[in-house]
């Protein structure tokens, strides 16, 4: 690791102040991506700002139509919350299949979405459910939050505080995970709100996105067969050591179909 200063602010304001004043600051939530990145010297921040002691970021608030999750809540906490399991099983299931137990015990919602890894799971849930991101400054609709590869709408001194997930009628997330990292080679989050259907795809492209033709087809007929004749174009899809665009395009359709099946069976 390069040299850096470590700070542990006790309030959101202090944390934001560090972001404003430090030369090249980096926020740390669970550190599960950040610390390996620092070790590989792929990042060289002047200051690391640990959010662990900032009050109010570790919360779950489950209401009938909305599940709110604090930015510093770990994946394990979301996965094991009986309230989340009851209200939004697709979200609990998604959180419970991120990485491995060690990662889930440290990794957080806020860290995941602020990093916006193209193969991360949470962004699919935010887009799929049409969530709202609360920050230290404002509210941002999920559709506006994830802007590009590893980029978000967050300003330099802005900190994610929580996310509101609307509770859908039906939802499910299915991913084909990378055999080693457990990141999504492709993951598809399908949610049905009355007549409105959202289909979010992660892993396939440089950034999480909504698959419009899928949403239209499922809006007409929320069943696996509605996707049967659909062709997903591999254009612009990711290539990595594991798989190429054609394989990913196929997975988008397969995972979406399985997500619809799972959603109809009650989610997961």
């Amino acid at each position: 690791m390069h040299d850096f200063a470590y700070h542990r602010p006790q309030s959101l304001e202090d944390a934001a102040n560090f972001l404003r004043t430090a030369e090249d600051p980096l926020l740390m939530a669970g550190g599960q991506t950040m610390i390996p990145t620092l070790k590989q010297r792929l990042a060289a921040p002047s200051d690391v700002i640990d959010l662990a002691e900032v009050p109010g970021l570790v919360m779950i608030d489950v209401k009938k139509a909305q599940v709110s999750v604090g930015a510093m809540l770990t994946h394990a906490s979301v996965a094991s919350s009986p309230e989340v399991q009851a209200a939004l099983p697709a979200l609990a299931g998604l959180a419970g299949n991120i990485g491995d137990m060690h990662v889930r015990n440290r990794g957080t919602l806020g860290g995941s979405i602020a990093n916006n890894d193209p193969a991360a799971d949470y962004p699919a849930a935010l887009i799929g459910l049409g969530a709202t991101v609360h920050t230290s400054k404002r509210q941002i609709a999920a559709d506006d939050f994830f802007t590009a590869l590893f980029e978000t709408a967050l300003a330099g001194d802005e900190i994610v505080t929580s996310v509101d997930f609307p509770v859908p009628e039906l939802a499910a997330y299915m991913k084909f995970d990378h055999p080693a990292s457990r990141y999504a080679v492709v993951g598809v989050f399908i949610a049905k709100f009355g007549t409105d259907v959202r289909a979010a795809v992660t892993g396939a492209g440089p950034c999480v996105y909504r698959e419009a033709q899928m949403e239209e087809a499922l809006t007409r007929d929320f069943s696996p067969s509605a996707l049967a004749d659909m062709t997903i174009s591999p254009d612009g899809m990711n290539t990595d050591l594991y798989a190429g665009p054609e394989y990913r395009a196929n997975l988008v359709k397969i995972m979406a179909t399985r997500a619809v099946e799972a959603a109809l069976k009650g989610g997961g």
Partner: protein
Amino acid sequence: MSKHHVTSTVNGEPVEFLCEPQETLLDILRDQLDLTGSKEGCSSGDCGACSVTIDGRLVCACLVLGAEAEGRKIETIENMAEGDTLHPLQQKFLEEAALQCGFCTPGFLVAAKSLLDRNDNPTETEVRYWLAGNLCRCTGYDKIVKSVMDVAAEMRGE
């Protein structure tokens, strides 16, 4: 960069240490506190050989900064036995030959204990998924999984 003065509890004992911001909890445990039972197999959180618990939660010590230990309770493999009595998992690993080279063993034991502390009736699948963050190259996992299942059964009084 200035060192941080950190106060925490390690294996039930109050501990103070000075650490550079870049030092991980694993560095502190091994190099400063002489607790070399936690092993460094990858340094990227992928092998689980450095498994410890922080405030009761299973983590990879290589992906925690030393400075983060401030005010936390850390438990390592060195505190798993009580006095001269091995933890039932340690005893079972010995009896069932659930270790070969022994390098991954401390991490597996810490991880398995963390599971059984929460769930004394895990299915084989639950055990396998809970331990999926720990790599073993010698055993094929068979005897490790069996040992954990057996200890769970004993803990339930079966």
